[in-house]
């Protein structure tokens, strides 16, 4: 079972994990040094991209209320109040990422009402390396 901070946020339906972009971030040198060298563009490495993970899937419930409750539980993790805190994101398949924040929740479309009620979603997690209050 996958989890975030030990919570089963995605288990009502199918979901998949995708590692975000991993790279060395580069900035134009002139932005950092003020150099006015116009003959050769130069870049400076400024650090690793912050780790990010995307979860896409479908929340499934018996009725609209059940699906809204599932969405609310995820949305609560994006809120600054009472505390926006990082946690461990565990795929349930042997991979986990610690100290990661749940940053975004977006539904993929309207609710679908067939045999069950369901809605597609995308959730974005990111490590925030900077300190903040």
């Amino acid at each position: 079972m996958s989890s975030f901070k030990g919570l089963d946020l995605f288990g009502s339906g199918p979901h998949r994990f995708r590692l975000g972009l991993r790279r060395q971030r580069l900035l134009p040198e002139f932005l950092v040094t003020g150099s006015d060298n116009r003959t050769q563009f130069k870049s400076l490495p400024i650090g690793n991209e912050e780790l990010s993970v995307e979860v896409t899937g479908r929340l499934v419930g018996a009725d609209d209320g059940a699906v809204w409750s599932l969405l609310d539980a995820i949305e609560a993790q994006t809120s600054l109040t009472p505390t926006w805190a990082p946690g461990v994101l565990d795929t349930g398949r042997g991979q986990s990422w610690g100290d990661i924040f749940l940053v975004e929740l977006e539904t993929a479309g309207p609710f679908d009402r067939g045999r069950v009620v369901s809605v597609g979603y995308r959730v974005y997690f990111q490590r925030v390396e900077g300190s903040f209050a």
Partner: protein
Amino acid sequence: MLVLDATKVSFAGSGLGGARLIAVDRVAATELVSFSDDGPHVVFADVPQQRVTLKLVRRLPTGTLDGPEPGDEGALSFETAVGRTDGSRSSVSAQAVVTKVQHGVTREGVEQTISFVAVSSAGATDPVSVTALS
């Protein structure tokens, strides 16, 4: 649903005699199919949108200059009895919109095929109702 013995066929209040068959087809308009990280197989499937269509095939004794046209809406209704007995008669009705009217010539004569899409009074209600008559 396939009805080979439809009687009292009418659409929008007008009788449609000579019915040979009426087919009620149900097709998914939207299929939801999802996979997981666990393997190659579908782990979730649902049909949140479906299209119910009806096709009436009837024999025309003579040529005709009028009749239903695409876009016409009304109640399509008929009665059916398995084996043409009164033992299990049912009345079937659906609010429907004509989508196609076609004609063909067979060895038995002229056939008219009218296609409909059934319209639900509310999205959750089955547009086709079947009522037992006996």
